[in-house]
């Protein structure tokens, strides 16, 4: 069986289990929407008191947030590995994963997917079209393709960072809070990086490149040519970070020693 058909089989099973508690699933999608609305309200309320934020207007900020939602939704749907150490290493579940015929990381992605997160793609697109319209942005024929590439780059940045962190579990299964910490650092990427000081900007660009999930790729669509260089780096950074994290993962798997029984 190819990876693709396995993926669809798992997705089908997933939907069946989710539809058992329909009311809860609706509330969960609703709470996701609410979460996105809260961040939007924050931006809108703030711009009730100022017209420009370090050179960015309200609609541009809203656009950046809308863009951010798309790669973040894709990441959230497929890379739920924040509890990898607890769930797979400490409980010995990794033993079972390793007996499966497909790549271990792919198997975990399949088991842990949360497809309802993909709703964020729709909200993100909606927000981008709304604010893009107000800004009078025009679409070129190649823009949708650029969009797909930049979104993939952003999602890979997120995935790379979190897969690398999960790989630490192969060496040390002690409890750390580094994952939630990283989710919070990720929030920095939602806002234009030029509001931060130089050190934080450097970290967000080269070390934990969350800026490539929001502001840099959005700059391309907003026509901010001073950021174009960074915008086009997005897929490169995404591939580098994700590639490195998979190498680290593969190496970690060879170091894995079963913990459960």
């Amino acid at each position, binding site marked *: 069986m190819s990876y693709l058909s396995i993926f669809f089989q798992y997705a089908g099973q997933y939907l069946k289990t989710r539809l058992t508690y329909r009311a809860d699933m609706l509330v969960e999608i609703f709470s996701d929407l609410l979460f996105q609305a809260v961040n939007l309200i924050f931006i809108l*309320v703030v711009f009730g008191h100022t017209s420009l934020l370090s050179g960015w207007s309200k609609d541009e900020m809203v656009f950046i947030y809308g863009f951010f939602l798309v790669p973040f939704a894709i990441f959230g749907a497929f890379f739920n590995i924040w509890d990898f150490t607890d769930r797979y290493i400490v409980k010995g579940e990794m033993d079972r994963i390793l007996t499966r015929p497909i790549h271990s990381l792919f198997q975990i992605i399949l088991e842990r997917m949360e497809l309802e997160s993909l709703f964020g793609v729709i909200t993100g697109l909606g927000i981008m079209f709304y604010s893009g319209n107000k800004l009078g942005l025009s679409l070129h024929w190649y823009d949708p393709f650029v969009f797909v590439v930049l979104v993939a780059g952003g999602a890979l940045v997120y995935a790379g960072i979190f897969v690398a962190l999960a790989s630490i579990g192969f060496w040390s299964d002690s409890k750390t809070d580094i994952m*939630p*910490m990283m989710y919070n650092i990720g929030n920095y990427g939602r806002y234009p990086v030029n509001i931060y000081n130089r050190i934080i900007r450097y970290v967000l660009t080269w070390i934990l490149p969350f800026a490539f999930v929001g502001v840099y790729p959005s700059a391309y669509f907003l026509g901010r040519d001073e950021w174009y260089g960074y915008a086009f780096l997005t897929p490169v950074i995404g591939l580098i970070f994700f590639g490195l994290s998979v190498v680290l993962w593969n190496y970690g798997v060879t170091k894995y020693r079963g913990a459960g029984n």
Partner: protein
Amino acid sequence: MAKYMEMIRIRFLMMLAYRTNYYSGILIYSINIGAYYFLWSAIYGDKSSIQDLSIVQMTTYIAVSWMARAFYFNNIDREIALEIKEGKVAIEMIRPYNYLGMKMMQGLGEGIFRILFFSVPGMVIVYFIFPIQFTTHPATWGYFLISILLSFIINTQINLLTGIATFFLFNNDGLIRAKRVVIDLFSGLILPISFFPVWAQSVMDYLPFKGISYIPSMIFTEGFKGNEILHGLMNQTLWALVLFIPIQLLWTTAKRQLIVQGG
């Protein structure tokens, strides 16, 4: 009464045993405070004050509202939901104490632990990183303490309501998440209520949420003056009393239609 005190003590000791988990928590809160600090600095630009709050007051507001969150925040809604799902709640109900009262006391034990080992050291650390100003008026500190105690009660009551809702929904992870998001926004944690448009503010006057974060934080930053402090405290007290009514109603109904799924 003694058994409830004992419950606070046990929860406190339990938290103490795992205290290393909390040092990273301080870092997480500092990261959040940092994000909002930079954002607000950019928003203020060269304005000296917005809605009567200076940038130093704003930074203090952010810091204290996050650190106070460590005190009032607890997961008893999740715990109740889990106990209902696993059927343990049946055992809890035949024990010689009030189940909801006991949950509240466990939350208080957690809160006392966190204020001592999380908020106080966290506040000191944040004080050295960001421009924050502590008030020197002893009275303000007194009002603040009363206010966060009330905010704990209101937040815990809302958690109890969410937890009890599991009796009717069976699986309410979604509701718990939604509640958390609503509280973050409407309590004034991420944005002082006075920044909202006037119509939104008048809506929020009729909701209990601003007693959770906005009122204690405004008292601490001295954004409230004179009568406003007393009005704030009265608002909180009123909600703390009113919220007992729906809890009692829901709880009585829930007990009657309890279905134990496991056990």
